[in-house]
């Protein structure tokens, strides 16, 4: 847990940091479309490579300093400084020469595509046209940080810098950090220096780090919190019946799937992989385990991601075809099929999923599968070293674009871990990155995903949703694909 946007990597951190710091643009409260933030307007060159951001004059840090274009450039320089070791630095790699500087190959930062023309104008030069560039800017890796504070409290490249502690923290967002007690509470207060302070209605927000979902639900029920992060599965029907208005189920940019290790026999056989995929009854999983709060996934990219919805044949539950494929692969009725194991990290939900799928495979294919749970960090290592047969996985998109779901299956994709490798696939994705038009780009994604679904190195199960509880007093809390809720609009009013 940390509050340094250039160091943290988690989703919960985003919720807090977005209250404290504002990027060049902000998000529309309903659809997350870019809205003027620290930059009051921007324009882009014809070829889509150069972006000019005009910062507003009244944008202030919480210590009263003006937010200048130089602040942004220095922030990005810190983000890309190799010795900081920032893990989300790759989010900036769309910028010209950013990657080279980040890896230490380029020493001269002035060659990287960030330029402060004057206090008010920031120019960013990209290495290729990036249609989703503006939505990237809302990721905290693109947020500015107050370099003088960072220098004062430990230095630019010290990850254990103390500038994020209350009293030290300087931000430019609608709220300022007031209190931070580990495992207890983080309190943020309305900022007196924020340029749009008129819009901000909440005086304070208290963030409670509650690790246990049952504890969280009880706290919500007793009125201690207004919005929960999630809800225990067994409580869903209870709320549906009694307090339906408090239960929210929002579409979310994430997919739950199983990785199949294509380097291991018999999973190196496409037919076996397909058989396993066809023998999973997603409808039943969604209904019985998730109480219809999630959507069945027949592919990897959630529908409507950045205007993209997979059009290929959806993966259907077809046990007959599955059996047929399995026997074609040499295991009629599951005979002779080796005992594979499903790896998952210790959690009740993953366990349940694995138990159900284990039964489905047993019933439909006649194969025995073993379950193996491992503690989170051990599980990560085992998956990443590809020391598994089948491994549970999930992916939350970093930004609303199909690219974040599709580029990980590249041969050298950092999060591939399935051994899947296809020259054709690699080419489709790299062509998409340089596609002349939005339509052409989406068509290439369609082709790529279809190829992926034919090869089936992964077995999609369902699309995540954000499931949480909310007090009816909370207003302007809209369902958004990234589960972001710009706090400056949120307020409390007595329930109608």
């Amino acid at each position: 847990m940390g509050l340094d946007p250039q160091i943290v990597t988690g989703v919960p951190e985003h919720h807090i940091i977005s209250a404290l710091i504002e990027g060049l643009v902000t998000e529309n409260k309903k659809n997350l479309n870019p809205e003027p933030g620290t930059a009051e307007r921007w324009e882009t060159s014809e070829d889509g490579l150069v972006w000019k951001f005009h910062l507003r004059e009244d944008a202030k840090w919480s210590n009263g300093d003006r937010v200048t274009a130089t602040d942004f450039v220095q922030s990005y320089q810190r983000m890309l400084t190799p010795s900081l070791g920032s893990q989300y630095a790759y989010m900036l790699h769309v910028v010209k020469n950013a990657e080279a500087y980040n890896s230490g190959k380029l020493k001269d930062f002035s060659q990287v595509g960030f330029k402060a023309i004057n206090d008010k104008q920031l120019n960013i030069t990209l290495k290729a046209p990036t249609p989703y560039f503006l939505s990237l800017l809302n990721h905290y890796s693109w947020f500015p940080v107050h370099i003088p504070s960072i220098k004062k409290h430990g230095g630019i490249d010290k990850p254990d810098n103390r500038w994020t502690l209350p009293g030290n923290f300087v931000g430019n967002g609608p709220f300022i950090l007031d209190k931070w007690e580990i495992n207890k509470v983080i309190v943020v207060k309305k900022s007196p220096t924020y340029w749009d302070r008129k819009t901000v209605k909440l005086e304070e927000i208290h963030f409670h780090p509650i690790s246990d979902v049952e504890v969280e639900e009880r706290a919500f029920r007793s009125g201690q919190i207004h919005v929960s992060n999630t809800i225990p599965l067994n409580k869903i029907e209870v709320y549906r019946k009694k307090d339906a208005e408090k239960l929210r189920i929002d579409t979310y940019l994430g997919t739950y799937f199983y990785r199949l290790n294509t380097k291991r026999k018999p999973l190196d056989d496409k037919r076996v992989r397909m058989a396993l995929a066809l023998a999973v009854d997603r409808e039943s999983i969604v209904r019985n385990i998730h109480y219809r709060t999630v959507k069945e996934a027949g592919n990897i990219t959630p529908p409507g991601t950045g205007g993209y919805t997979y059009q290929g044949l959806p993966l259907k539950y077809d046990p007959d075809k599955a059996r047929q494929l399995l026997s074609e692969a040499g295991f009629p009725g599951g005979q002779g099929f080796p005992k594979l194991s499903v790896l998952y990290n210790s959690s009740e939900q993953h366990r349940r999923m694995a138990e159900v799928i284990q039964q489905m495979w047993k019933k439909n294919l006649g194969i025995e599968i073993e379950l193996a749970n491992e503690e989170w960090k051990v599980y990560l290592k085992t998956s990443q070293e590809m020391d598994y047969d089948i491994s549970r996985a999930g992916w939350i998109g970093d930004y609303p674009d199909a690219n974040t779901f599709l580029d990980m299956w590249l041969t050298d994709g950092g999060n591939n871990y399935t051994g899947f490798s296809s020259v054709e696939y690699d080419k489709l994705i790299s062509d998409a990155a340089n596609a002349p038009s939005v339509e052409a780009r989406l068509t290439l994604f369609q082709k790529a995903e279809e190829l992926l679904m034919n090869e089936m190195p992964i077995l999609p199960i369902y699309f995540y949703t954000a499931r949480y509880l909310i007090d009816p007093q909370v207003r302007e809390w809209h369902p958004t694909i990234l589960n972001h809720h710009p706090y400056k609009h949120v307020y409390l009013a007595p329930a109608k």
Partner: protein
Amino acid sequence: MGGLSIIAPWIAPYGYETQNLELKAVPPQLSWNTMQAVYGRCTLEQARTNAEQLGGALGKIENAQVAALLHGTIDERDYGETMWVSDWQGAGPKRIEISSDGFTPLDDAGDEATFLYLHSRAHWLGTDELGRDLFTRLLYGGRVSLMVGLCATSVSLTIGVLFGAVAGYFGGRTDDLMMRFVDVLYALPFTIFVILLTVIFERNIWNLFLAIGAVEWLTMSRIVRGQVLTLRQQEFIEAAIALGIPRWRIIWRHIIPNCLGPVIVYTTLTIPVVMLLEAFLSFLGLGVQPPMSSWGLLIRDGSKVLEEFPWLMIFPGSVLAATLFSLNFLGDGLRDALDVRISKD
């Protein structure tokens, strides 16, 4: 010795469970005694709608058939299968056939859809959230839990008593060294130790004993040591030493029997702790792997659904409590039987 007879009921259904292997795979069924089936000819869709109108959840109807079939959800392979249902007043049972367009009653069937209560004798204690029979899971879980409880406790008992007795009897530097060793073990981070074990060794039940045995004997050894320190000063021990009886014999014949009281009490206290600890270890990947379960795991899971599905908590909890009560009586009986002083009278 009355204790044994009380635990007998827990030994008896034990052998019984192996004959019920099929029941282990009973698929999703969300509730216990409210399972409803549709009697009368209707499609799945109609049945669903009807259920919802009566305030039921729609999953339940499908689950009822599934319960009877002992397979997954219905597909073509189940067509032609029949199942027995009876209505909620107890009339019936009637036989229903599953066909491609829903359920068809076989005997004196009316055409209207009536809601029926499925007598499911297979689920005496209800089923869990994946529709598995709780009774069966308790029986299977009992094997794991009793084994862990007894084995791990005996390990900790043996090490703890011997270690404590030796330290207490020899005293001085030996005692000091041995007790500092105990201090070290107390302090080591257990979670890390367990994770380390999961990585280094294959996952199996013996590692579980190792992990539990490694921590649970510590307090035992301190209790025994405290007792022995006192005993050693007593006249009959000094007499024994004066008579030249070998040290080991003194420890074995005189010291240990005389501190059996607290040892037995603490042992009976250790058993539930060990059983619950097993659940934590299994969670970390050491010990039993699902779908196999244990009482500790069942209680742990049940505690999360206390409000919605209380039986999932109550039954495993009661079984554990009953076992401990029995062991406790057994312990009391054992002490009376073994206690040197009482037998002296």
